């Protein structure tokens, strides 16, 4: 498996919903997207990579359509989707509220999402039997905070943004480490990543 030239890494945060059977626990399947970080990484012909990151939080409480539109904006037919439990991410995106004012827009966004599924997606959940360990290790290796076991809450937007951004970046690092063996000259992408991250932090 080779490293793809264009990938969009999605780190989602979900609002949990009570189990409809009244068990007093959260439903394992019914989850609603509340925030996400999307890191798009594009490799050019010279072998350099370019990064673009967006973090979006739903502060309106009506979730989904706006987030869905923003999440799918960078996707094209060449994009390889990367995420953690992509099945949950996609299923939550399908739950566009009924009688929404923007259902036609939502449909366009879903068509864009389907287009991106022309390429085989990568789910970081399968990286190891204990994926948090792998993802935290990848984060530490690249000087990022290991934030996979930290709780996320949209009540504190700056922390939420920082956590999701760090998760998306560590997922990208883990995928690169997985897809490019040590010694691969393409690993110089990490230098581009460090440069981009320093600039992004300064900004």
């Amino acid at each position, binding site marked *: 498996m080779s490293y793809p030239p264009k990938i969009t890494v999605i780190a989602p945060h979900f609002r949990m919903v009570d189990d409809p059977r009244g068990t007093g626990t959260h439903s394992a399947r019914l989850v609603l997207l509340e925030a996400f970080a999307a890191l798009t990484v594009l490799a050019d012909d010279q072998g350099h990579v370019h990064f673009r990151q967006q973090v979006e939080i739903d502060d309106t409480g009506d979730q989904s359509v706006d987030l869905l539109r923003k999440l799918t904006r960078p996707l094209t037919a060449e994009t390889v989707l990367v995420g953690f439990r*992509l*099945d949950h991410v996609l*299923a939550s995106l*399908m739950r566009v509220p009924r009688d929404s004012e923007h*259902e*036609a827009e939502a449909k366009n966004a*879903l068509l864009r999402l389907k287009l991106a*599924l022309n390429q085989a997606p990568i789910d970081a959940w399968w990286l190891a039997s204990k994926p948090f360990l792998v993802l935290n290790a990848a984060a530490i290796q690249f000087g990022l905070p290991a934030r996979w076991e930290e709780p996320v809450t949209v009540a504190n937007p700056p922390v939420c943004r920082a956590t999701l951004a760090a998760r998306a970046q560590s997922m990208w690092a883990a995928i690169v480490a997985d897809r490019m063996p040590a010694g691969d000259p393409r690993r110089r992408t990490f230098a581009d990543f460090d440069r981009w991250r320093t600039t992004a932090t300064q900004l």
Partner: protein
Amino acid sequence: MFRSNDMSPPTSLAVLDIETVAATTEDNSFPPWPTHRPVVASVLTADRRRYGQWQFELESVTFDDGRCAIERVSHLLERRTVIGFNTRGFDLPALAVEAMRHQHFDCAGLSLAWRANRYSGNHVDLLDVISSFGGARGANLAMLCAELGIPCKVDAHGSEVGEMMASGKADAVARYCESDTAATLCLAGMVLALRHNEPTYAGLVSQFGVWVRERGLKHLAAYQRLPSHAELDRLSLVGIVEEGIEALDHRLHLQWATNVPGASSVTKSAFSDIL
């Protein structure tokens, strides 16, 4: 007249496999099927929920009490399409004989699957389907699974069941039977996707792998990721998105047709020349 329900693949499945014991024959050939007594039956159910997501359950029933076991198996098969490999030629007739041995005649699930004709939608025998109803003979489950990269019969074989039961390894027989249902489900996902020309149906195999991992079923660990998992994962996600688009389309058409209160203003403007 036979009517086939071939238009769409089943959305509620019960994959069935049984293990049996029988007295050995003089020439050591496979004993005639009516002499087989079921010892374990495994039923792996898969029900399609909203947005292309499948829900799985797996249960093995031991035949310590034959009557109760038949009742439980029949209950699990009820209101589902029964899927199996050579179930028309062995599993269902053997269960039917066992039910009659116990004078248990009130078992709707088993009865419906057993009497279903080979072209109906209530029972799909994969051996029948894949061999074009006997046109291409000579295949078995292990052979087909090997060709498709599906793990099958790695720990035991049906011929060892008698020995295993005699040495008190009923649990091992149940695990073996469960792994056969897992292999049959994976095969069914691929066969039915092709048969109904619905590629995303094969995503069922990917979702089953996720379920095995979530449940931590160690004896089925080989089914978490098949060699072809990249494409199966993709098909599973495409299935979710396609169902989402279909649901949105449906709602948009409803709004157009009825102009319900709260209908989308975007839709209204899009159809303003008609409404």
